[in-house]
């Protein structure tokens, strides 16, 4: 049945956010409890050579529809403020140095999250001339979120598992 904008606003306010799936612990992901985030997760996003597919999905988890901010998840402007580096794409030769510097600049305790299949195993870019390797080859990764690109709901579920909300 067609749900008019006016009816929806009258029923639940002008809210467009959908109910998100429950948080899940990804299989095989050893999420360190030492982070002790309890509902406050700040991410520093690093595009190490991505095709921007994962970036579109990251942008959409902060859209009104998914609204990751309601779980205390935020992107921040400095690695000093972040609890995790959110790395996308295969690591290109030019981005390997900046990625290492960013991970070094994270204030402890902090982890590295590999988002998407390229970050995990280079995906379709495996063996390309400009590619240094996957994120796992450059840094120690504590959480992998698979998918090409991962669906926004999957990203939120994994991040909620991490921040214990």
């Amino acid at each position, binding site marked *: 049945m067609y749900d008019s904008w006016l009816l929806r606003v009258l029923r639940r*306010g*002008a*809210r*467009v*956010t959908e109910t998100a799936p429950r948080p899940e612990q990804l299989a095989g992901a050893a999420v360190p409890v030492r982070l*002790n*985030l*309890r*509902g*406050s997760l*700040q991410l520093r996003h690093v595009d190490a050579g991505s095709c921007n597919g994962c970036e579109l999905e990251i942008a959409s988890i902060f859209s*009104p529809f998914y*609204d990751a*901010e*309601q*779980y*205390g998840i935020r*992107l*921040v*402007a*400095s690695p*000093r*403020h972040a*609890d995790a580096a959110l790395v996308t794409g295969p690591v290109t030769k030019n981005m390997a140095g900046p990625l290492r510097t960013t991970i070094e*600049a994270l*204030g*402890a*305790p902090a982890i590295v999250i590999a988002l998407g299949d390229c970050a995990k195993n280079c995906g379709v870019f495996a063996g390309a001339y400009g590619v240094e390797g996957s994120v796992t080859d450059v840094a120690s990764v504590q959480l992998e979120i698979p998918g090409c690109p991962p669906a926004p709901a999957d990203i939120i579920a994994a991040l909620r598992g991490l921040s214990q909300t």
Partner: protein
Amino acid sequence: MNAAGISVWQIGSVAVQVALCVVGAPLLVGLMRTVRCRLEGRVGPPVRQTWRDLRKLLAKQRTQPEQSSFFFAVAPVVLVATTIVVIAFTPMVTTRTALLGGSDLFAIVFLLLLGSVSLALAALDTGTAFGGMGSSRLMAIVALAEPALLVAILALAAPVHSSSLPVIVAGSLHHPMWLATPQRLLAFGAFVIVILAESGRLPVDNPATHLELTMIHEALMLEYSGPDLAFVVLGESLRLTVLLALLSNLFFPWGIATALTGVSFVVAIAVLAAKVALLAVAVAAGEVAVAKLRLFRVPELLAGAFVLSVLAVLSALVIA
């Protein structure tokens, strides 16, 4: 009463308003964020989110850039300490404050400035490009905003012939007609613009930005982490709270305790919290509707605030 003529209530009021501000300031920032999210059609984080962030930050490691000096480490403490002194001196709960001698409008404005300057110096101290850019921008804005703030309060000080804040607040309580005079309305306009500029809200600065090139206040804290960052965030929220409390008590003084009794204190605290929360919701709702001004247009806005406050002083003189 003791020999100095200061009662337990007066000392208690200072302690209460400091405690109330430290606990309430992060909640106030959280409330503004939640209101903004709701108006954008989002659920938004809970109001206590800022406290969650602070609790986590206090447990994290603090970092210091290799080339920076001790000033980088002390600046967040200076920011919080000066703001707490301002809170102690501002008449929030009662006009009969224990610190009557220090509650001068010049002292308040310069103490607020000290916090900004220490943060700007610390950002220069890091030696990064964005830190220097942020501090030069902050100084440009502060240099234009502070005179407008001083002159605006001066227009309120003229009718009572005193620069003491409790006297100004008590004066407008005794003469309710003053609240609708031209100089009040002009000073109110100037005051609102200055508060938005001083606390880094839209349209002067966007507190939620990730773009380093558009940052002003955010650029100053890029190198801070852990407890230092928690102090900077707490200090900024305290500044916003004290400015909104000052705005509400100077222009809407009803509810503030003029007698030193328990009942009037409880009423004063409740009314103050309601007034400040209402102003914060109004600011947040206004922010949804406006875009950030181009940096080169900000001096024009602040010059406008200064003109408003000069006109306020002139009309105060003409009417007197």
